[in-house]
């Protein structure tokens, strides 16, 4: 039983990380209907920025928030400088641009900080959970994810800026007519996504260690979580992340062992999608013919 509980809680912690990545993907998707394949590498890069600040002697939490701010600025810049030129491009061209960004971030990180694996500190290491069933970092990760989700929800629901961003995503033409600067709203969306991704990166780095390829698998899980929960629904995407995290751990422990768990988890996700194509909690799209 203890094993079961441990697997579930560590699954929830992994799930929280997938959920954050999924959230970042959903942010960009709702605004532009594109899946940002470079999201994971952007998060990895933010993580290196934080690592560098810590290495220079900055206290953890200052480095944490500085990295988030830098990522936000970076996200906005990428949208304004590169993506803006592709607003009317076909989907596949955009995918190639995202792949381009992915290899650029990966390669530049390897060039600056080398491909040697680095340790990344966890701020929750000394937290006392009072039980051996839940790891301190796991608990911290879940808490942080829930905080971000709440903050984003409040931002989009109750602030004028959040409202403007939603308007720009849902109906760009009408939003423009009432004076919303649609282009900048998209850029803000990119910035927020980069910031959320940065948090996800800094949460996962203590577990998988820091190296330029650390996010590859996690991005895929984030993608799968977002689709599983429903890519149009941020809450669903987070739930999808938790489901996938627990599922993956249980499948790995009880069914087939660790070497095929990624495959099995994905097969399950795909089979769910075959029966429920818009995800578990996504809106069913009605198309007018």
């Amino acid at each position, binding site marked *: 039983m203890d094993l079961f509980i441990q697997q579930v809680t560590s699954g929830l912690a992994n799930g929280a990380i997938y959920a954050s990545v999924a959230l970042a993907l959903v942010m960009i998707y709702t605004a532009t209907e594109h899946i940002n394949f470079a999201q994971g590498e952007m998060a990895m890069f933010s993580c290196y920025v934080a690592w560098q600040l810590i290495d220079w002697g900055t206290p953890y939490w200052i480095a944490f928030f500085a990295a988030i701010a830098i990522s936000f600025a970076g996200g906005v810049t990428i949208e304004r400088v590169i993506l803006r*030129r*592709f607003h009317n*491009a076909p989907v596949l061209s955009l*995918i190639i641009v995202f792949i381009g960004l992915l290899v650029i971030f990966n390669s530049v990180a390897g060039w600056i900080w080398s491909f040697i694996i680095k340790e990344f500190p966890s701020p929750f290491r000394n937290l006392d959970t009072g039980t051996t069933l839940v790891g301190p970092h796991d608990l911290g990760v879940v808490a942080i994810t829930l905080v971000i989700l709440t903050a984003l929800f409040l931002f989009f629901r109750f602030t004028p800026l959040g409202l403007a961003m939603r308007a720009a995503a849902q109906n760009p033409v009408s939003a423009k007519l009432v004076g919303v600067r649609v282009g900048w709203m998209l850029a803000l969306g990119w910035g927020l996504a980069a910031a959320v991704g940065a948090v996800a990166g800094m949460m996962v780095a203590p577990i998988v260690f820091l190296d330029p390829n650390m996010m590859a698998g996690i991005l895929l899980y984030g993608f799968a979580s977002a689709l599983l929960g429903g*890519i149009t629904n941020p809450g669903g995407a987070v739930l999808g992340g938790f489901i996938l995290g627990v599922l993956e751990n249980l499948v790995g422990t009880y069914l087939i062992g660790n*070497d095929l768990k990624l495959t099995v988890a994905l097969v399950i996700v795909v089979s769910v999608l075959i029966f429920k194509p818009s995800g578990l909690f996504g809106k069913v799209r009605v198309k007018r013919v």
Partner: protein
Amino acid sequence: MAGIQKNILWAGIVVVLAVILPLIPGVSDYRVFQLTLVLVYAIALLGLNVLTGFNGQFSLGHGAFYAVGAYVAAIMMDKWDMPYYSTVPVAAIVCLVVGFLFGLPALRLEGHYLALATFALALAVPQMLKHKSIEEWTGGVQGIVIIKPDPPFGLPISQDQWLYYFTLFVAVILFVCAWNLLRGRTGRALVAIRDYHMAADTMGVNSALYKSLTFGVSAMYTGIAGALGAIAIQFVAPDSFTILLSITLLVGVVIGGLASIPGAIFGALFVVYTPNIASDISKAAPWAIYGIFLIVFMYLMPTGIWGGLRRLAALIASRRGSA
């Protein structure tokens, strides 16, 4: 029909050039090997282009079919001592069946969902190839080493040159087949499904059958490329068929030009030679240069190299017309 005759003329010129190229003195065996790889990629890209460019179905998992083709060839040559040329049709049939079967459930998925499903396939295949239960066949993580075939009939050419001509022969047949397939009734059905599948259904196109068959044919092309690639490289291992291969194939299709047959050749040239050019420019971060290439290409030529060339040709023609 002047258009078709012109096309045939151009294709003929390209084939003649391709035949002469390796015989030019000073072209080393390594260069010939690279050209063979260009042909291999061209076949694979053509397969993916039929699916993505003409039929509008995404695939981030064609590396999986490539891997299946490569392993079929390697196992047949290494374990059963079959001649190399016999592996190509077998790889074709195996991949046709696998692709068709995968295409059936994929019918329910569109766009990003299909991308995820195929992505999962691309990740799963290397893991499965490593699995213990089939290690006896696949050689596990170690993979399989195969021996390069000698030229037949005592031809006075090197092994690399012979393999190049063999691959060229297969490639020409496959390109002609694809051209015939796509310019007629079938091609129109595929494009109609891509552009508006509901309208296509109403016109009597059996879109479910066409879509899964297209998946099969596309996988068959890529599988043949895998078999030829394995023979040329003389080695297969699970780690040569990572997700990176699938991404490379997609990059090649889009950069070459979606929904165009010559685009496959340009895409293949890009895929084979750009990494070398990038690492000539910067040894420290070659992939950053590669990424910049991708973004700049998409900015300057959103319809790929072939689309860009056609636009250029049209521009020149209209200038000449107005002058």
